């Protein structure tokens, strides 16, 4: 039986920022919402929390319409949007108490949240004296406080050092199994999503360019055949008579995706014509290459 849909948007639009987004997040998933800076990730997440009003489209969370059931939905949702929010003059514990009182959750949740994010030892320190990583962890603790069914995290590892990033990733990875949560996580780092997410949605310039499992994203990656011969010019001429369009790159003839029997046939034909074949290889794009291609960014994000 397939898992229930937790988040479903239909043609979700915010003028000039997000265009007709159809997101689908299923129960128990860690959904990686990937896109370069300025792609519309935060705007989308804010629309899911009712902080920003969509220009068009609908949002259904837990099967309920966000517009008419906002309060009931938010009761079951925890979030951390952009930078962590906190009262600097209050201690970490007092910050959690503020959310606890508004959420109406028991004291034991505060202790548990502090334990999960490993802030017990710093609970009585003012939040303004926390390091960035600690503030981030405090923000996650606030989001976790009611142990919601859905957790929405917007770039939770932003600004952290590698050790801090790994710590947060480890924590997020453990949440579905540990607390039965569904996690929607945004990031502009493919490597991060690759390490944590079970499903991925790629957004670029406000449009969803891919949605599915990481496996299905990899499956879209059809490799290219590269052949090295003793006489590339003659080999290229021969291949063109067979209707192929080889490109010469770095001393190799580059062909598109070919079936195994076609590769064997090309090899036989070249050898029969006395052209020595020194190497035949299949090269697949990395996920990063695919992401850069989808988002139209060939260099650094």
């Amino acid at each position, binding site marked *: 039986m397939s898992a229930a849909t937790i988040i479903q948007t239909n043609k979700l639009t915010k003028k000039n920022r997000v265009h007709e987004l159809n997101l689908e997040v299923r129960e128990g998933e860690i959904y990686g919402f990937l896109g370069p800076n300025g792609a519309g990730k935060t705007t989308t997440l804010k629309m899911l929390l009712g902080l*920003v009003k969509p220009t068009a489209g609908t949002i259904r969370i837990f099967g309920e319409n966000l517009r008419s059931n906002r*309060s009931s939905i938010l009761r079951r949702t925890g979030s951390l*949007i*952009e930078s962590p929010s*906190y009262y600097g*003059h209050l201690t970490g514990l*007092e910050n959690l*108490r*503020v959310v606890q*009182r508004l959420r109406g959750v028991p004291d034991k949740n505060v202790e548990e949240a502090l334990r999960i994010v490993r802030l017990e030892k710093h609970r009585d320190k003012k939040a303004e004296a926390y390091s960035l990583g600690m503030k981030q962890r405090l923000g996650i603790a606030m989001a976790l406080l009611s142990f919601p069914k859905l957790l929405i995290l917007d770039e939770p590892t932003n600004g952290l050092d590698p050790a801090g990033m790994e710590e947060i990733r480890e924590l997020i990875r453990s949440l579905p199994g540990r607390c039965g949560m569904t996690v929607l996580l945004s990031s502009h780092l493919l490597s991060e999503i690759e390490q944590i997410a079970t499903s991925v949605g790629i957004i670029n310039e406000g449009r969803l360019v891919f949605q599915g499992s990481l496996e299905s994203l990899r499956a879209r990656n059809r490799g290219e055949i590269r052949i090295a011969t003793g006489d590339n010019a003659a080999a290229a001429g021969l291949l063109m008579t067979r209707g192929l369009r080889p490109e010469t790159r770095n001393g190799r003839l580059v062909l598109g995706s070919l079936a195994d029997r076609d590769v064997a046939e090309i090899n036989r034909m070249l050898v029969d014509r006395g052209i020595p074949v020194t190497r035949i290889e299949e090269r697949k794009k990395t996920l990063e290459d695919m992401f850069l291609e989808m988002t139209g960014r060939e260099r650094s994000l």
Partner: protein
Amino acid sequence: MRALKLEFYKIRRKKIVLMILLLLAAEMMWAFMSTSVSISRNPDHAVWASILFTTASLNGLFMPMMTAIIVSRLCDMEHKGSTWKLLGALDVSRGRLYAAKYGCAAVLLLLAVVLQAMLMTAFGFMQGFADKLPAEWLVRYIGGTLLVSLAAASVQQWISMTVRNQAFALCLGMLGSFVGLTGGLFPEAVRRWLIWAHYMDLSPVTIRYADHVATFVTQALPPDIAAFTAGTAAACFLFGGLHAARKEI
């Protein structure tokens, strides 16, 4: 009620009460010194009306500033830590949170006005005022001062929640103080629209000058000014609350 209690929880270590006490101390010292000098020059001024009138006139200068500071401190903590976004994503209506903040400011202002009344009473007994303690005047004084302060607070809160930079809100408070201090110099037609000038209008006592002699007289509550002030408080609170609830974060 839960949201209101939470506002008081959130302002711990903010030293708001200390600021109120300092401003109040400055105002009341000024009022007591001024009244003492007035009594020494004219013993007929050793009456409750003199301290009530003096404090009401100084309220025009001090209360708009105090109101701006209280409201600004309450709103600034939400801007500084981006916590309005955090609160907006919880299952609590933003309107309720806005009202709780206003309620917190109202309680602090009430505390300041009641403290003023207590200090005036103590001063009156120490000076041995000839007439009987006018309880009705004190109640009217507290009500009138609070009403004007609540109207000013509703304007201040709207500005403080909308504009992140609290310098704007504090400038408005200073402008209010200027208007409150010089309100008596404005023509009646202009003054009635300036809420900060109404501390004196809603005071139970005023002063009349005739033949170079100043006499304290009781004044009836002006219903149009009271209604305008209450209307301004309600309208700014409602529109400010709606604005805060609908504004995209």
